[in-house]
């Protein structure tokens, strides 16, 4: 067996534990060195995993050497390797950004970041739905603590909502798992897909309820329409580097939706084929409307960034809900783009808040920024890619999604909403940019200049925008094959059932 696939989970776990040792925990410099070096190692591991997945090998790993339906298995296919790589890039940028001083505002910053990365990677790699729940809880409990890192009234009050909401979400997740185990008798995702096909009449309705409950939990994580109200406040109050890593959390929900919709409730699922697909489509359109209103009315840069996250969720789920191969492939491209650009914009908002005195990141005239030139350039690039203007990756992502939605009855709904969303983002960015950079008064306070490594961190994330549009060909080829691979698994789930090593 190839043990490489366990590293994205084991490595952050070990690094986090190592950093809890007093020798390292007491010395912030040592922690910084270990976590940045560790993030780079994780990045290398993820690239290796992606290269192995790109040559169409699916890495299957039977934990504890138990054969598939009985033991827990890890599945490293194209989709999960891609998402793991995305997490590693975010983690590196977030840790680099935090090492400029944000890590010192509270204790255990890096161990918690590592635990969170472990939970996210685990959720992407696992092939067992109960294990998915466990990794969800790991990433959640780390995120609860990271959210209140540094303390303060706003963080606490946002965290109360976030924690309670997610605890209820976990309870619903468990109810759904109980129902599904009761009717299907398995928790392995591939085995679930097989059992759904031979479900007898009396249990179809019950399984349907379980499946829809599962979908609603994932919709809560993904911030789909009626369940997205928690996001703006939570994301806007979290510390900058933390929220940069949070940018992938909505994608964990979307990933789970894609995984379950295309494996368990795929086209071969008989009565349960495409369960909830219509709901996703309608609610995603609703999410776009809400996010558009939110983007226009956002009072601060971080709120704007949070509403842009919801806008990207809406855009993504419109494509997922449409459910053709092309639209799914476009969604995967857009997911990578929106995660990186969204995280970068949160960090830019954090730098702006740091450099202006009392007005923080609110979009009002205030003291001049200490480094208006470099921040302005980053803001401009982020704005272009997030609005979806050529030549950067946002344009290609949005264009691919719109092109894939090609029947006239769906096009009438999706195209106007997607374009109005972009227009709203454009208006909001112009307003924010002109207020922040041009309507400033007072001498800039050069002692407030931000550390260079903060700009490097934002640069790493933003460099993806031109790179992703430069290499759009290979990337879309990769996502196309990813979707085909999902289809192959859907037709023959036994392909992703791990076998233990025979002795």
């Amino acid at each position, binding site marked *: 067996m190839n043990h490489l696939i366990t590293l994205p989970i084991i490595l952050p776990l070990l690094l986090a534990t190592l950093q809890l040792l007093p020798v390292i925990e007491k010395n912030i410099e040592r922690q910084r060195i270990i976590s940045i070096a560790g993030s780079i190692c994780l990045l290398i591991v993820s690239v290796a995993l992606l290269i192995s997945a790109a040559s169409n090998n699916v890495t299957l790993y039977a934990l504890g050497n138990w054969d598939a339906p009985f033991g827990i298995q890890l599945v490293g296919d194209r989709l999960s390797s891609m998402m793991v790589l995305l997490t590693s890039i975010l983690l590196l940028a977030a840790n680099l950004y935090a090492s400029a001083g944000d890590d010192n505002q509270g204790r255990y910053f890096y161990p918690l970041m590592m635990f969170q990365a472990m939970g996210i990677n685990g959720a992407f790699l696992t092939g067992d739905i109960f294990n998915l729940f466990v990794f969800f809880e790991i990433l959640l409990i780390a995120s609860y603590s990271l959210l209140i890192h540094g303390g303060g009234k706003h963080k606490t009050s946002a965290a109360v909502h976030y924690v309670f909401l997610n605890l209820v979400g*976990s309870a619903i997740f468990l109810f759904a798992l109980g129902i599904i185990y009761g009717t299907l008798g398995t928790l392995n995702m591939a085995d679930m897909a097989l059992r759904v096909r031979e479900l007898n009449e009396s249990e179809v309705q019950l399984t349907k309820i379980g499946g829809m409950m599962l979908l609603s939990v994932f919709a809560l994580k993904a911030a789909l329409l009626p369940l997205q109200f928690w996001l703006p406040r939570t994301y806007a109050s979290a510390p900058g580097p933390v929220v940069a890593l949070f940018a992938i959390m909505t994608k964990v929900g979307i990933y789970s939706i894609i995984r379950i919709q295309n494996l368990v409730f795929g086209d071969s699922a008989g009565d349960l084929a495409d369960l909830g697909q219509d709901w996703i489509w309608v609610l995603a359109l609703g999410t776009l409307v809400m996010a558009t209103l939110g983007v226009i009315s956002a009072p601060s840069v971080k709120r704007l960034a949070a509403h842009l996250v919801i806008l990207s969720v809406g855009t993504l789920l419109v494509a997922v809900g449409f459910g053709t191969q092309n639209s799914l492939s476009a969604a995967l491209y857009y997911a990578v783009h929106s995660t990186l650009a969204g995280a970068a914009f949160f960090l830019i908002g954090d730098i702006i808040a740091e450099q202006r005195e009392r007005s923080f990141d609110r979009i009002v005239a205030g003291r001049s920024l200490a480094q208006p030139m470099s921040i302005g350039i980053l803001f401009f690039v982020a704005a272009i890619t997030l609005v979806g203007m050529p030549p950067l990756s946002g344009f290609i992502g949005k264009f691919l999604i719109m092109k894939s939605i090609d029947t006239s009855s769906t096009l009438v709904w999706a195209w106007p909403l997607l374009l109005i969303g972009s227009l709203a983002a454009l208006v909001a960015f112009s307003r924010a940019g002109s207020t922040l950079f041009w309507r400033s008064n007072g001498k800039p306070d050069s002692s407030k200049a931000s550390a260079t490594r903060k700009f490097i961190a934002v640069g790493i994330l933003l460099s993806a925008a031109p790179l992703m549009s430069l290499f759009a060909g290979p990337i879309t080829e990769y996502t196309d094959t990813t979707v085909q691979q999902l289809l192959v698994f859907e037709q023959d789930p036994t392909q992703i059932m791990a076998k233990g090593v025979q002795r």
Partner: protein
Amino acid sequence: MELLISLIIGLLTAVGVFLVLRGRTFPVVLGLTVLSYAVNLFIFSAGRLVIDGAAVLKSGLATPDPVPQALVLTAIVIGFAMTAFAVILAIRARADLGNDHVDGRLPEQSGEQK
């Protein structure tokens, strides 16, 4: 037996949901706890109820499904940790915000809630 268990789960869920929807943090935490009890019982019964079965393995006796028992153990541990965190957070929120309302501020007309 089935009726009894399902009634208990239903009652616990109803109580849990009611408490979770309250405005103060303490009832909400209690509600989450009750809800997690309901969930645990529910998962436990997902492997079908067996009366007079063997505790582990014994030929001739019906054996209950061991998987839900393992699941419920995991769920209990996680639920316990999460409840502990929620309690600490609620105390912190009381200290930081000066009241124990989940929104961090008391509603305008809270005459009857005092």
